[in-house]
């Protein structure tokens, strides 16, 4: 079976409406593969039948499952090692100095997928325990995908996932083997709060974050939506906070809400301009 372009477009548009994620023409082929298990579960013969069901029954739950299946959850531990190290060293050191009085740091991982990014951060803090002694570190990690958040919270990784980017020493130290999988140790898991949240919605916490990671997510937003999302991140970050993007991402030409940090190249800080935060 091969779906016609209009059917694929319909499904890609559904993804964009719900999540902001655009699917390039060249990646439409993925739709069919990604939705095969859902078709099987629902006893639907083709994507066309799926679209008919979506339109005819206005089935929000089904729409949610389609969006889940189409999201790209690709991630790994310490993804883009160099930038990660920059954050762990220069970035966090600066925040430590700036928050020396309060001894409190709030970090938000937006679009954390199955949790590798947040666990990588938690490992950094856990291994520098002496430096952060007496500190309260709030680590909130969110993603639109319910399945991804469930896995992140369970802290259960396949052999394939566990060894992508994670040094073997840290794997042995922070995870235990559980059959064919590896499970995060409670000590590490307890450092992170995982929650489902759509970046198109208002910020999921009151107050402001000192550090925001929003990596490999806004890349796939349409320009106008991306600008609005940067605006909301701006409203959610302290005025001396730090923003970390994916290695292939930048704010240059995308938004006025953030600028490159002059001292820590590769990280971004909020600009002092007033920025529109209205949702696109």
């Amino acid at each position, binding site marked *: 079976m091969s779906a016609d372009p209009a059917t694929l477009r319909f499904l890609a548009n559904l993804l964009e409406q719900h999540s902001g994620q655009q699917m390039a023409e060249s990646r439409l082929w993925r739709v069919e593969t990604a939705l095969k298990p859902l078709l099987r579960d629902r006893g639907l013969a083709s994507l066309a039948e799926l679209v008919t069901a979506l339109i005819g029954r206005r089935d929000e739950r089904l729409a949610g499952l389609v969006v889940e299946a189409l999201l790209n959850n690709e991630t790994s531990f310490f993804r883009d090692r160099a930038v990660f190290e920059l954050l762990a060293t220069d970035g966090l050191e600066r925040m430590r100095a700036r928050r020396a009085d309060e001894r409190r740091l709030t970090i938000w991982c937006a679009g954390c997928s199955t949790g590798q990014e947040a666990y990588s951060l938690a490992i950094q803090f856990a291994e520098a325990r002496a430096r952060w002694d007496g500190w309260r570190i709030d680590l909130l990690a969110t993603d639109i995908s319910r399945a991804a958040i469930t896995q992140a919270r369970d802290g259960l990784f396949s*052999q*394939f996932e566990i*060894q992508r980017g994670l040094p*073997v020493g840290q*794997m*042995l130290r922070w995870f*235990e083997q559980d059959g064919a999988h590896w499970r995060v140790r409670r000590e590490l898991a307890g450092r992170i709060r995982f929650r489902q949240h759509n970046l198109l919605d208002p910020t999921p916490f009151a107050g402001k974050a000192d550090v925001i990671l929003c990596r490999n997510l806004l890349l796939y937003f349409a320009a106008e939506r991306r600008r609005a999302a940067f605006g909301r991140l701006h409203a959610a970050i302290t005025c001396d906070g730090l923003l970390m993007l994916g290695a292939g991402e930048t704010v240059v030409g995308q938004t006025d809400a953030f600028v490159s940090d002059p001292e820590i190249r590769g990280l971004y800080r909020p600009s002092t301009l007033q920025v529109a935060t209205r949702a696109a």
Partner: protein
Amino acid sequence: MKTCLVVDDSKVIRKVARHILETLSFEVAEAEDGQQALIHCEATPPDVVLLDWNMPVMSGMEFLQALGRSNVIARRPKVVFCTTENGIAHIKAAIEAGADEYVMKPFDRDTLASKLQIVGLA
């Protein structure tokens, strides 16, 4: 160019590993067992050895121990185990014996690339 010695008794695995390593800009040499690998390392030590566990003649562990004892190897290569022995006991034993990293088979390009980066070679 960085050099890697792939040590595996399976021709297929050597071929797959060579292909991946070449896309990562490594110059690749091959050995079928630990003994061949040791001879190679004594003559021309590579930057990194990708090492299987079970091999005839000299196993990966025996190779690692011999490498540690050898005083004719000019520059000790990094050693990355690459094996189907995926139990925690094996992994711990390999690290204690001096392996720098551990890759569980099956693996893909990104995994291998990340491990080589971790040992400082990418």
